[in-house]
């Protein structure tokens, strides 16, 4: 499902101001960045630097105050809610920092969820879900509900769900935050393999040095601005 676009993501003059009453906080300030298809990019920076806000904007979960974002060749600000939902469903995989899973579905059903919305048939869905759960080390835990899994296991289910249908772009917000170093390495290796084998674009926000070491490109943010952009 790779898009085949030269630029998976293009941001031009992106600013975001959060307002509450008379109080306005500028979370992003005039961000310009091009992310090509197949990149493995890490956004790093301290808390409040704007990493998560930028991910939200790229994922079409929030709207920019100024500027424009293009994903898979389409301007997000020109799209309706329904079109954005379609874009997320077919082109973007999400891994959130916490509260990643649907509590009433088992691990396997959570992984199958997106594929089910995509209309993939049951047998294919089941096979893909079982394979990916095995790859993330959750063999035998497929039928457990999120409440019966540890934080790390839940995070691996979320990663499995994000990558199982091989979207063109995966947005991951601190994906290893709840994992030990061994599982963290395993997960990052899996994501890198996916990136190398089918060219999935990854944008990962992190402040974990180990995670950053997997990045091909490291973008550092501070106070809503990009302060460094390095190829590794």
């Amino acid at each position, binding site marked *: 499902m790779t898009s085949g676009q030269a630029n998976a993501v293009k941001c031009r003059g992106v600013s975001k101001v959060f307002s509450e009453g008379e109080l306005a906080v500028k979370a992003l300030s005039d961000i310009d960045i091009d992310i090509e298809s197949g990149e493995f990019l890490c956004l790093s920076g301290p808390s409040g630097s704007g990493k998560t806000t930028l991910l*939200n904007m790229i994922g079409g979960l929030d709207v920019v105050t100024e500027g424009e974002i293009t994903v898979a060749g389409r301007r997000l600000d020109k799209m309706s809610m329904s079109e954005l*939902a*379609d874009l997320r*469903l077919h082109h973007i995989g999400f891994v*959130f920092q916490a*509260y990643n899973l649907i509590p009433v579905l088992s691990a396997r059903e959570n992984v199958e969820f997106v594929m089910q*919305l995509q209309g993939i048939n049951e047998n294919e869905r089941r096979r893909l879900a079982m394979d990916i759960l095995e790859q993330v080390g959750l063999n035998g835990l497929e039928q457990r509900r999120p409440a019966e899994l540890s934080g790390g296991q839940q995070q691996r289910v979320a990663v499995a769900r994000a990558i199982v249908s091989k979207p063109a772009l995966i947005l991951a*917000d601190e994906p290893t935050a709840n994992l030990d170093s061994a599982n963290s390495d395993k997960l990052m290796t899996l994501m890198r393999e996916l990136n190398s084998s089918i060219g999935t674009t990854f944008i990962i926000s992190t402040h974990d040095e180990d995670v950053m070491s997997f990045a091909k490109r490291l973008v550092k943010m501070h106070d809503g601005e990009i302060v460094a952009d390095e190829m590794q």
Partner: protein
Amino acid sequence: MNTASKLSWKIIFRMAWRNLWRNHRRSLIMLSAIALGVWGMIWMTALMRGMVDQMIDNSIKTLSGHIQIHAAGYLDDPSVEHLIPPVNESPALQALLDSNDVTAWSQRIRVPAVIRSEREVYAVTLVGIDPARERGLSFIEESVSDGVYITSVDDKRLLVGRKLLDRLETKLNRRVVMMSQDPDNNIAERGFRIGGIFDTDPQATETSYVFGGLETVRKMLNLGTGISEISLLGHDYRQLDELKKKTQSAAMENADVKTWAEQDPYMGTMLNVMDGFILIWFAIIFLALSFGLVNTLLMAVFERTREIGLVQALGMKSSNILFMVLIESIIMLMIGLAAGNLLSWLTILPVQDGIDISGVADGLEWAGMSSTLLPALLARDVLTANAVVLVLGIFASLVPAWRASRKVPIEAITRVWQ
């Protein structure tokens, strides 16, 4: 993106079903409320219908039948001056009464009279009947509790109500004297032996009517061939317009043809009001239910705000989220309806032969009610109750469902991301 708009009913139904049972206690309370509400709708409607049916049935059986034919002016002055010719003198009417449109008919002489025992005197209505024709038409034969029913039109005994007998301080087989006026305004009187006693509801009937053989009463009143009234039964007391038209065209000139509802406007109005009253009753119960239903769903949606944001972020469309909440509501409504219907059936089944309300029968007698109340469970009332709860329940659920579907993903999951 061609499959993006596909509605994945299976996953939506699965999530709705499981979400319903996440808060067992709240769901069970709501289900109980729906079940009790539906039970209240059906049970109370069955009782109200039973009550009205019984009042109407009593009214119809208390001599009125579905349609009555009198001489013009008889209802204002029910005396021997206002008589109509007997049925056998009117071929058109005879043909109608013998047709399939009419299930039973009878002709009577019915005049105001006075009954006198050795001790007391009471004003009553003396009714001369053809006993064979009254079977299935009026209450008379089935109410005989002591002695015998009138055996023929020439029977010289009287059938008297038990309460009247008590008031007259007399007994079965004793003699009484009946007095009335003949067509020449002379006193017409005759001695009768009490041959039978009847017990019926309402008890006022027992003190109002005294029955004798048609020909015996005719002779006592020195009447020719005339009669006071013809009473007939059709097939359905609600559908009498056509039969009334046919009766009017077949009946003799100047005859006054009236349905039971026209003769007893109170009962007729009661029947019309009942349908409206039942709908109002349904609306009141549903209103109470809908507050609980909307509140339950709003709470459920509020508790799942982040989850709704998550599924939106994963690509679930607003319409799917709306359907998910609606399906959750429909499942709850359907289970509640099933339980309510079962409860109604289980509670009506043991009392289908009647509920004894003799303790308050005297108070209700004015309304024509009996001491036994028979619940009347009509399929259309059950269907209406179910339809009201289901259809209006879905409409009420649109508010929380709409709210859930309109959430902005980032606002819904903001607590997670930042």
